[in-house]
């Protein structure tokens, strides 16, 4: 799911600009259950922590014998070495926070970049199917994608996985997905 800061309570509006996305994200987080490892950059980790709390995940996690620490202690942050994945061997679920490009329209945060739609299409296909090639994520960084969590996801995903796409849209010129994987 995307690390949209507008999901956070400190950025709440009277009229929620991301109400549909919020609902889909919360449903997906509840689906994960209580034992969750978050793969995200710093901002994404804040969004994940909030959504877990909103969904009741934090409380459930605190009750889990394998993860008695506060949820932030299991967040995989930007630049973490591969060995830090060790706690995930205990986890039953991953919450991956990231999104595609932010250059999909003239009003997008990164303005329009003609490469954005092709990149997002390729990344979306790879996320949705284990039989598709991944696009170059370095290009995605150029297109202001939030990809740290997705890079970590690639290390976690097995060769075969199934994906359900719950949300696929770019309401503000930024490509969002909410997907659920299982294997």
């Amino acid at each position, binding site marked *: 799911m995307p690390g*949209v*800061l*507008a999901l956070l309570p400190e*950025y*709440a*509006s*009277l*009229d929620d*600009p*991301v109400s549909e996305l919020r609902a889909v994200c919360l449903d997906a987080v509840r689906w994960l259950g209580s034992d969750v490892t978050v793969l995200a950059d710093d901002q994404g980790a804040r969004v994940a922590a909030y959504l877990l709390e909103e969904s009741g995940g934090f409380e459930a996690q605190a009750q889990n014998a394998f993860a008695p620490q506060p949820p932030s202690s299991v967040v995989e942050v930007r630049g973490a070495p591969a060995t830090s994945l060790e706690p995930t061997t205990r986890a039953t679920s991953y919450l991956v926070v990231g999104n595609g490009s*932010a250059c999909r329209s003239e009003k*997008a*945060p990164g303005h329009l970049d003609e490469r954005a739609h092709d990149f997002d299409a390729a990344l979306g296909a790879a996320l949705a199917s284990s039989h598709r090639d991944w696009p170059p994520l370095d290009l995605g960084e150029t297109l202001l994608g939030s990809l740290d969590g997705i890079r970590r996801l690639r290390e976690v995903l097995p060769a075969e996985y199934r994906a359900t796409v719950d949300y696929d849209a770019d309401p*503000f*010129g*930024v490509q969002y997905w909410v997907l659920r994987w299982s294997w």
Partner: protein
Amino acid sequence: MTLRLGRHTFDDDATLMMAIVNRTPDSFYDKGATWAEDKAFERVALVAEQGAEIVDIGGIKAAPGIEISEAEEKDRVVDFVARVRAAYPSLVISVDTWRASVGAAVCAAGADVINDAWGGADPELVDAAAEGGAAIVCTHTGGVTPRTRPYRIEYDDVVAAAIADTTAYASRALDAGVPRESIVIDPAHDFGKNTFHSLEVTRRLGELVDTGWPVLVSLSNKDFVGETLDLPVGSRLVGTLAATAVCALAGARIYRVHEVVETRQVVDMVSSIAGRRPPRRAIRGLQ
């Protein structure tokens, strides 16, 4: 403080627009535009559509003029209040009167608030509010007689005087049985005040807010705005809104206004700047 205005309650942080509806032939701003009952009713419909939470119905202009008897004042407002009550059950109805007998009659007809612009000139008005289940607005006028203009009035400290008089009035209302959450204070710009007084009250409005009583301000197109900017009635909106912004930043709760839409925008914007109100819909930089 949570507000209870007759039948209606409002959250602690709610700001409210009180739209002026004159049932007079000679008020200074509209000059009789809503004197006819149907015109006044059209005005109610307009301000309700614009989002005003309160209508303030007045049957006598504030300035000196032909004496209006109690019977005549009742003729102008009581049936009109009943008509508005029936048509707009969710609208707060305030009546601008200093007379207890009129207050009692409009409460019986459905009024929620008695707006006493003349600072308790009739000491029995608080009883009428208490018995009628209405809120009351306690204003500061410096003790002047209703419908008189200020003349060489001076104060050692106009804000201290406004606080002392309005809070004393509030205590009288409380003693009479008006619930605490139904008592509002108003420093009453221009009433018993020269322009320097009204400017100082505006500048120091936070001191009234700090009393803990919800504060109403009535600034709309008044002479202190006109004298400050040397502008006639009809050209005072910008000055009114500037004063409104200062009062909103200080934490005023109710704004008695001619222009609902413009005032609401100013109050909402300032409330958001002050951190009391979230933006309507913020996504810039947060996508």
